[in-house]
C-alpha cells in the first residue's frame, strides 16, 4: 500500500478563507480506506472546519493512535505535522507535545477501540488534565483494522457481521467524559456534515479538552442489519438536542440571541459558541443535567447528538501549570541555565 498525493486543482473564483487559502489547501494524502467508510466523511469535515476557521495548517498538530480511524490524520492538512503514535496512547504524546508548545492547535483522531479499550486510561486522564485539544472519537462499534471484532462501544444486542450478538454493556464516551470532568462533550454522526463541522469548529476553539463522539459506520464490518452503528440505524434514531454555532471574535455576536432559545457561551479567544437548544428544559452548561440526559437516551434507541455539555471556566493544563505565554520549546537555553554561581550556592546545602 502506498499513499498518493492528491493533485491540487485550483479553480477560478475558488472561495478563500480569511487568510487567503482555499479548501484544498487543507487536503492531505489520498485516503486508503474502504469506499463509503464513515471516517472519510469525518476527515472531510475536519478539513472544512480548519478551512472555515482560517487556521494556518502548519500551526496545527494532528495526533492519532492506531486503527483505520487513526490513519486518517494523513488524509487532511499535509502542511501540519502529524504524529501517528502507538495503539491507545495518543493522549500522552499529545499532552507532552502540548507541554512543549501550547501555541499550536492540537487535534487528536482515534477510534472506539483505540479510545475505549487499550487507550481508556490515557483518554480519561487527558480529560482530567483538561489538555487543550480536540479529540475526535470515530466510533463504529468495531475494530475495523483488525477485521470487525466488537469494540467496547458495541451496544447490547448489536449483531456481528458473522452472527452473534454483543451481550456486554457499551462504554458511552459521552457519559464517560461527563463523569471524569471533560469540559466539552459532543456527539455527532459522520452523515451529518453540517452539524459535525460546526461541532469541530466549536471544539477547536474551546480552551480545554473537547471530545466529539462521532458515529462513523464501518461499511466492511458493521453496516449490516442488526448493527446499531450502521448508516441505516443511525439515520433512523439520530436525534439533535443542542445545535452549536461558533461565531468568531470579530463577528457581530448577539444578533440572533433570543432568550430561552439561544444561549451564548463566551470563549477565551473572544469568540462565542451559540447554543440553540432543540429540547426544552435542557441546560448544556449543567453537568448533572447533561449526564441524566445522556443516560436516559442510552436506555432508548435514540442517539442524542449535538454539544451536550460545555464548561469554559475550568483551567486547561497549561494555565493550571502556569506555563509561559511563549512556548517552552522557544525559551533560550541562557534563560534555562541557573548558572555557575547558583550552583556554587546550592552546593553549600550538601557540604
Amino acid at each position, binding site marked *: *500500500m*502506498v*499513499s498518493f498525493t492528491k493533485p491540487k486543482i485550483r479553480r477560478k473564483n475558488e472561495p478563500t478563507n480569511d487568510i487567503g487559502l482555499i479548501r484544498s489547501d487543507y487536503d492531505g494524502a489520498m485516503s486508503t480506506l474502504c469506499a463509503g467508510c464513515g471516517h472519510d466523511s469525518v476527515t472531510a469535515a475536519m478539513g472544512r472546519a480548519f478551512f472555515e476557521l482560517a487556521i*494556518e*495548517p*502548519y*500551526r496545527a*498538530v494532528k*495526533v492519532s493512535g492506531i486503527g483505520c480511524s487513526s490513519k486518517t490524520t*494523513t488524509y487532511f492538512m*499535509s*502542511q*501540519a*505535522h*502529524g*504524529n*501517528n*503514535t*502507538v495503539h491507545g*496512547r495518543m*493522549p*500522552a*504524546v*499529545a*499532552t*507532552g*507535545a*502540548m*507541554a*512543549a*508548545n501550547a*501555541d*499550536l492547535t492540537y487535534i487528536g483522531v482515534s477510534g472506539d477501540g483505540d479510545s475505549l479499550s487499550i487507550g481508556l*486510561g*490515557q483518554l480519561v*486522564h487527558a480529560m482530567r*488534565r483538561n489538555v487543550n485539544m480536540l479529540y475526535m472519537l470515530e466510533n463504529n462499534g468495531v475494530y475495523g483494522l483488525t477485521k470487525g471484532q466488537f469494540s467496547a462501544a458495541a451496544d447490547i444486542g448489536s449483531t456481528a457481521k458473522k452472527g452473534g450478538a454483543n451481550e456486554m454493556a457499551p462504554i458511552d464516551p459521552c457519559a464517560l467524559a461527563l463523569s471524569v470532568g471533560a469540559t466539552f462533550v459532543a456527539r455527532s454522526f459522520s452523515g451529518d456534515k453540517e452539524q459535525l463541522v460546526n461541532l469541530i469548529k466549536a471544539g477547536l476553539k474551546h480552551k480545554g479538552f473537547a471530545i466529539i463522539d462521532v458515529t462513523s459506520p464501518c461499511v466492511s464490518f458493521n453496516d449490516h442489519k442488526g448493527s446499531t452503528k450502521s448508516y441505516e440505524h443511525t439515520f433512523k434514531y439520530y436525534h439533535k438536542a443542542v445545535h452549536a454555532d461558533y461565531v468568531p471574535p470579530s463577528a457581530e455576536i448577539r444578533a440572533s440571541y433570543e432568550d430561552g432559545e439561544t444561549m451564548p457561551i463566551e470563549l477565551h479567544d473572544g469568540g462565542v459558541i451559540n447554543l440553540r437548544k432543540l429540547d426544552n428544559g435542557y441546560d448544556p452548561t449543567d453537568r448533572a443535567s447533561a449526564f441524566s440526559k445522556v443516560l436516559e437516551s442510552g436506555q432508548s434507541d435514540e442517539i442524542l447528538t449535538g454539544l451536550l455539555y460545555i464548561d469554559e471556566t475550568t483551567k486547561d493544563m*497549561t494555565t493550571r*501549570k*502556569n*506555563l*509561559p*505565554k511563549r512556548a*517552552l*520549546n522557544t*525559551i533560550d*537555553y541562557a*534563560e*534555562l*541555565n*541557573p*548558572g*555557575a554561581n*547558583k*550552583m*556554587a550556592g*546550592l*552546593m553549600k546545602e*550538601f*557540604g
Partner: protein
Amino acid sequence: MSGPALNDFVIRVANVNGTGSASANGLLMKAIFRMGIPVVGKNVFPSNIQGLPTWYEMRVNEDGYTGRSGEIHLMIAMNAETYAKDLASVSPGGYLLYDSTWPRPSMLQRDDITVMGVPFSQMVNDTFTHARSRILMKNMAYVGAVAALINLDMDVVRKMVEDMFASKTKLIPSNMQALELGLNYVTDNIDHPLPFTLEKRDKTNGKVMIDGNTAAGLGCVYGGATVGAWYPITPSTSVMDSFSKYCHKLRIDPETGEHKFAIIQAEDELAAAGLAIGAGWNGARSFTPTSGAGISLMNEFIGFAYYTETPTVFFDIQRVGPSTGMPTRTQQCDITTTAYCSHGDTKHIVLYPADPKECFEMSVNALDLAERFQAPVFVLSDLDIGMNDWMIDALTWDDNYVPDRGKIVTREQLEDGFEFFRYLDVDGDHIPYRTLPGTHPTKGAYFNRGSGHNKYGRYTEDGEEYKEVVDRLADKWFSARSHLPAPVIRKSAHKTKAAILAIGSSDGAIIEACDRLGKTGLHLDYMRVRGFPFADEVEDFMAAYDTIYVVEQNRDAQLRSLLINETNVLKAKLIPVTYYAGDPLSYKFVMEAISEHTAIRKTA
C-alpha cells in the same frame, strides 16, 4: 581486613523505620564528614512506611574507599526485633551498643565481641513527656553515645543541630539535652573511647555529600530539560523530586510567576513515556525517571521513539527484580533490557554512571546525545547510587556549555531552499534532519509514524525501502560509541594478564579489591565501561588480557552477555563475578570471588 583503626571503621545502626532515625543517622554521618574525614552511608530500608527494620551503615575511611567493606565494627542495635541478627553480624573483635532499659542476657552470647548497654528508653522517658518526642529523642541520645565512643567532635554536632532547627529554635535545647544524655552516660559508665576513633583531617574540603537522584534532577535542570514526566516508583521518585525542587527554586520567572518547566505526573509509565516522547518530538528537552517495572511497561513506546528517531531521556534507577522483587534493594539487573528494549530490531544508547557526580554529568550528556542522535537515551543508575549519600567533588557548572540540539531545520533554512526529507542521510553521518511542528507554512511538515517508512519519511511496505532505514539506524547507533563518556582504565603498578571489567556502582568495591589483592600479589587492571554501544577501547582492552573478571550485580551476568554479543571477545576469557543479594557490593565479596577463582585455577 579493613580496620578497625583510627578513621577506618564501620558503624551500623539498626532502627525501626518511621521513627525519625534517618535524620539522626544523617547527623552522625555529616558530623564525621565535617571533621574532614571521608565517609559513605548506605541505607538498607524496607518496602514499607512504618514499623519494619531498617539499617544505616556508615563506613569511615580516610583513604577514601567508597565501597562497602562487609565488616561491622560498631553496631548500634536500636531495634529489639533484629537483636539476634544484629548480634550475629558484628565482626569478631567488634562492639555492640544496645538499649539496656530491658537488659538482655542473650546479648552476651558472643565472647568475641564487646556488648555495651545504655538505658536509652529509661533516660529519655525520665526526661521527656511527649510520646513522639520520646521516640525522636532516643535517636539523638544514641548519637550522643556514639560521639563519646568514637571521639566525635561535639562542637561540630552542636553547630549542626543549631542549623537543623534554625527555623524552629525552640527545639534546640531539648535536642541538645538528648545528645548530652547519651554522651554523659557513656562518659560516666562505659570504657571509652573505643580502640577505633575519629581524628580531624582536611580530606573533605571541596567535597559534598549528595545522592545520585538529587544530582540527576539537578543535571536535568542545568541540561535545559523543560518537560519531565513520571509515575512514582522506588527508587526513582527522588529524581523528579529533585528536578521539581530546583525548578521551583531556579526556573520561575520572578516577574510573571510563569514556570519555565512542565512536570506531569502520569497515570502510569506508558503515559510517562508517551509524555516525554511527545515533548521531545516537539522540541523540548524531556525525560522520564523510572525503575525496571516501569521500563517493562514503556517498551512499546521505546521502540516507537527508536524507530521514529525521537529524542528523549529515560532514567532507570535499578532495583531488585523481576516483578516487584525487592523494591528497596539495589542491583544492576536491567543491563540487557535497556540495551535492547522493545520488540523488533532495537538497540539503544545507554550511559552507566558510577556515582552522583556522574549522575549529574551524564544527565546533561544524555540530553545532548538524545538530540544529537535523535534517539531515546538511557541513564542506567541504581538504588545504591540514587538513594544513598556519596562523597563527591562539589558539582560545578561551566557557563560556556552550549546544548547540542542536533539537526533541527529552521524556518530560515527552509526559506533558503533546504530540501527537507525526514529520514534522509544528507551528511553521511547516518543522522537525518528533523523539523518541529509549526516551523514553516509550506515546507517542512512531516508525518511521524511507527509504521514502515522510507528515507523520505513516507509510508512504505517495500522491503528494500524499509531495510534502508533500519540499516541506517544500526549505523547511527554504532557511530555513537565514540561520543559517549569514555571508559576509565585503572592500571595496577605491576604488569598483569588479568583484569576486571565492570560498570556503575561496583566501582568503589572494585578499586579497593584491586588494591588489596595487589598487596597479596594478585595484580589486576580495571576498566569501568561508561557507555553502550561499547567504545573501541573496550574491545582493545579485553584483547590485552588472558583473564577478565566481569563484576556485576545481577544473577545472569548480563554485562558479560552483552560483551560477548557485541564484541569479538573470546567467551572463555570472561569470568563472571556476580553479586545479587540486594545490598551494595562489598570489596570483600569481590576479593573472595577472585581469590577463589585464582586458587581453583592454580590447583586445577
